[in-house]
């Protein structure tokens, strides 16, 4: 069968894997081929995670630098491209400091455990057509379940350090992550309803249409769901403006105050890998995943994901940090009711999806937004005076 060159560019990674496996199959028993198939996917993901993390740090420093009117790293290699490697060497050679009263085992385990869920989420991210490592039929639920485990290692690290700043940071993280997990999960529900599947692959396939541009974000519920999901994702990976758990000006460094060297780097790595996977899942759910005209599928996926990451970095460069009560109020009093209204809208959309449905949706959304904003009037706490003694 003759196929166009676009097909081969699109399938370049899939073809490469199939070619390696058929080569192995010529002179090795079947069970080794099965193991090799798993190993190839696993090794690719295990390399992809850290490499993405390394270059995300560079990208972040570069973009933040440009936002703040400076160059960012540009000394190591062309355009500072070797900067992440230099950082890595620095991390490896740093002294590993463990506090004298720390719970040694838990202190050691926390940074190791935190990488596991961050890497496991990569398994269900569809990087391109036929490029999901494990095509689970509950892929999205897997993502939600695994990302909810991330709280545990943060707790472990903060508690084992025996440091008040660490503990405060850990408590804040737990409160924040639990709160934002709820609107995030509910924001995903419309996408599940419309694609009638929990599999990330099927959700992407449900967004096909003319020019592959039938993305969920081009519907009223899609826009609302995407914005809520993206805000919650930013909060989930503790990035500014939701970076209260590691607010430098208040808590030194939050839950990883007592970590140095490679242990700190692992926390950092998990955070950036989470940022990448959350953006990838957001792109999958609402931006059509790897769907798109003309370009190969994996290019579309990475393009969309990096676009979202750039928006996250933009957030960091522009927004000041939330106050604790504002943070909680935003999740519980604003995002949560809005997600419920959004689910209702999706149910309406299921029956009629034409111009009148658009108008109705905008009307309902406008009214509910207005009511929510009215109900969430700025709360001005009573002014407190602290008279100085003497």
């Amino acid at each position, binding site marked *: 069968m003759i196929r166009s060159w676009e097909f081969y560019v699109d399938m370049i990674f899939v073809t490469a894997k199939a070619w390696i496996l058929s080569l192995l199959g010529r002179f090795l028993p079947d*069970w080794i081929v099965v193991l090799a198939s798993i190993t190839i996917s696993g090794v690719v993901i295990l390399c992809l995670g850290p490499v993405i993390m390394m270059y995300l740090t560079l990208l972040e420093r570069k973009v933040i630098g440009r936002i703040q009117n400076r160059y960012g790293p540009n000394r190591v290699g062309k355009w500072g491209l070797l900067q992440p490697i230099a950082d890595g060497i620095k991390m490896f050679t740093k002294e590993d400091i463990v506090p004298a009263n720390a719970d040694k085992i*838990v202190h050691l385990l926390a940074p190791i455990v935190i990488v596991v869920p961050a890497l496991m989420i990569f398994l269900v991210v569809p990087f391109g057509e036929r490029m999901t490592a494990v095509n689970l*039929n509950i892929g999205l639920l897997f993502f*939600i*379940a695994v990302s*909810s*485990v991330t*709280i545990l290692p943060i707790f472990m690290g903060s*508690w084992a350090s025996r440091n008040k700043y660490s503990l405060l940071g850990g408590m804040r993280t737990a409160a924040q992550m639990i709160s934002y997990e709820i609107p995030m999960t509910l924001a995903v529900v419309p996408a599940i309803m419309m694609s009638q599947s929990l599999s990330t692959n099927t959700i992407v396939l449900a967004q096909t249409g003319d020019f592959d541009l039938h993305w969920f974000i081009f519907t009223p519920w899609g826009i609302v769901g995407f914005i809520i999901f993206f805000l919650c994702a930013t909060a989930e990976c503790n990035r500014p403006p939701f970076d209260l758990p590691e607010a430098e000006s208040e808590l030194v460094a939050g839950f990883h105050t007592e970590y140095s060297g490679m242990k700190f780097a692992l926390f950092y790595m998990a955070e950036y890998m989470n940022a990448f996977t959350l953006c990838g899942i957001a792109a999958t759910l609402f931006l059509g995943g790897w769907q798109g005209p003309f370009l190969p599928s994996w290019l579309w996926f990475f393009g969309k994901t990096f676009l979202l990451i750039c928006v996250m970095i933009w957030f960091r460069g522009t927004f000041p940090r939330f106050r604790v009560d504002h943070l909680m109020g935003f999740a519980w009093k604003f995002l949560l009711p809005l997600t419920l209204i959004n689910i209702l809208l999706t149910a309406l959309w299921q029956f009629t999806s034409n111009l009148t449905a658009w108008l109705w949706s905008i009307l309902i959304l406008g009214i509910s937004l207005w009511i929510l904003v009215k109900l969430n009037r700025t709360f001005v706490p009573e002014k407190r005076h602290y008279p100085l003694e003497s």
Partner: protein
Amino acid sequence: MPILEIAAKFGTYAVMAVILIFALGVVTFRNLFHCALCLAAALIGTAVIYVVLQAEYLAAIQILLYVGAVVTLIIFAIMLTEHLAGKTARQNNSQSLLAIVGLLGFVTLLATLILKTPWPVTPTALQAKNSVMGLGKALMGTYVFPFEVISIILIAALIGTVVIAKKDAPEEPL
């Protein structure tokens, strides 16, 4: 592929052994925080067993509810009692013997029930229980009444907590 099957079997037994070790840790460690972490590990191990038995949905829910919510709640409670978390707590008291007798009775009851129940393992039954759609239809159709009753009980419990929590507020201002 017999080699892979044997490997999977051994893997499953290894996971079971690990679960048992962590479960023992839950009831023997002197430090409450370590106990909670062991509990989390044991629950994750159980989820792995579910995955091996091809009940991925159950596994995901197990992790989401037990590890993501219940263990976090337990750890929160331990954190609020910091003096307990740092020191060692005794895991047994004078009622240990009675507890063991009760436990043995419960285990025998459970074992007889498990052994007596005929477990119908047919392809159709497996299909029906695996799919999320089947579960959803059952919850919204056949079992809608108990489902709603449980929701009402949960809401009642929630309101009750709020009421209890509210009573103390004026007496002890922060």
